[in-house]
């Protein structure tokens, strides 16, 4: 098992609020890792630490070591934009740009000065299982797609940059069951090429898609391990309560 992405002794504060406490996690390469835990426990915060989204909140304070392939993500002299290019992200609510479908994919390539052509866009859409549905409407505003299509477009947009890791923050929570299933299938395919971290509230989903599962509680990692183990033989009492649906 190769560790591609990891955090050591990570602490995050928002203002006075200590949101992540001594978090140590590792996300194995070409696997899907699920982050679960009750609302407010810090799952999103952890995820966003990896692509440095907290840089934008002036009151966020981050301590600890985050690395990708032994490269420190918070090293001074590497541009944050490079990091974000290597570590893509998909959000809870699909957020396509108010541009055409094609433009949505091209945008990331263009701003990163990557040369691209039509076949490149096609490939990204194919990887997200969206090509067949939109190939005749590439110029259509992305906002006209259905929710599920929009989310897959967002995944295509992330994939187009050939990242190493894709972070997904509850990517299916706003979708209907059919779309959810499509995305889960997609995740299965994607892990051949990418390392995937997914936050989910849906225990079934975690079991369906994840190789590894991490359970967080009040800013701490309470338990982690193979998904099967976590859900069938949880060690920690809280984990047991949580996965059986007693709170959260």
């Amino acid at each position, binding site marked *: 098992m190769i560790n591609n992405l990891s955090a050591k002794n990570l602490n995050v504060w928002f203002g006075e609020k200590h949101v992540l406490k001594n978090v140590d996690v590792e996300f194995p390469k070409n696997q899907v890792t699920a982050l679960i835990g009750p609302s407010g426990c810090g799952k999103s915060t952890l995820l966003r630490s990896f692509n440095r989204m907290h840089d934008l909140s002036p009151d966020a304070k981050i301590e600890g070591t985050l690395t990708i392939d032994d490269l420190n993500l918070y090293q001074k002299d590497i541009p944050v934009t490079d990091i974000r290019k290597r570590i*893509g*992200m998909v*959000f809870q609510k699909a*957020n396509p*740009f108010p541009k055409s479908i094609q433009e949505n994919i091209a945008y990331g390539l263009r*701003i990163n000065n990557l040369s691209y052509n039509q076949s490149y866009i096609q490939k990204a859409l194919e990887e997200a299982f969206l090509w067949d549905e939109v190939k005749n409407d590439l110029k259509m505003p992305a906002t006209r797609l259905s929710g599920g299509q929009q989310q897959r477009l967002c995944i295509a*947009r*992330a994939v187009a940059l050939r990242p190493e890791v894709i972070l997904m923050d509850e990517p299916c929570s706003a979708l209907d069951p059919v779309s959810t299933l499509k995305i889960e299938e997609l995740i299965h395919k994607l892990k051949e090429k990418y390392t995937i971290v997914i936050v989910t509230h849906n225990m079934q989903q975690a079991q369906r898609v994840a190789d590894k599962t991490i359970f967080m509680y009040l800013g701490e990692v309470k338990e982690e391990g193979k998904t099967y183990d976590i859900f069938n033989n949880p060690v920690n009492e809280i984990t047991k309560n949580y996965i059986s649906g007693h709170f959260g």
Partner: protein
Amino acid sequence: MQYKKRIFIDTVAKHTFKLTGYLVLALLGGIFGMLLYNAISFFAEVRPIDFLTDREWNPTANEPIYGILPLIISTSLVSFGAMLIAIPLGIGTAAFISEYASPRLKNILKPLVEMLAAIPSVVIGFLGIVLVGPQIAEFANLPNGLNALNGSILLAIMALPTIITISEDAIHSIPKTYREASYALGASKWQTLLKVTIPAAAPGIIAAVMLGLGRAIGETMTVLMATGNASLFPSDFFDSVKTITATIAIEMGEVPYQTTHYFALFAIAIVLFFMTLIANLIGEYFINRFRKYHAA
């Protein structure tokens, strides 16, 4: 008995409110009716085609000529120049306030913009005479600074607060998710602003620009004082120009009531009315579109 009195008051109040409502409407409708009536009187005496195509505005000549073209060109030239200055400055400032400024700086900048908005136009016009005009003259090596450029600069200052406030609202109300999506793709703050936030806020910004333009077209005192008021066809920004508003302001006092010249001023006023109305309607259209879009 008491109750009857209360109900009576209630009914009276209801009808009073209704009446004032209608009265206000009648008055405001009257403005348009009056403009229209007087303008029609004008067209009973001068052919509309002459009005629109004659290249000269000279109502006091022996053979009066009522050509609105030079006035429209002048108004457009000055307003266009003003927009050339105000649009980049306004949008830039709006973007700075909403995206870059710290909350404290914001709390300083916003009142400053409101202060700028509060300065009466006659004061700006005065500064056009004593400050901006001489500077332009010196800078461009001109005999004097009472020209279209001067008017444009001053009108830009007057339109800026409108453009800044409304653009800032628009940029500010773009959901954070757009920005995050862009950052997540490796875009810098600047790229995100330029390629995602501003395009997404475009309807709001267009609205801001149109409302600012409406303000510039309808402004009277600054142009009256600062543009030199020569009624010839302007050829560039260093020419003196006489806008529609200035023409009304200069000539209204001197015309005998109910004469052709008097009606002519109402005719150009109605043109002015429609110019600003169109700018404002376009502005409102885009504001509504923006609201609808982001409410969804």
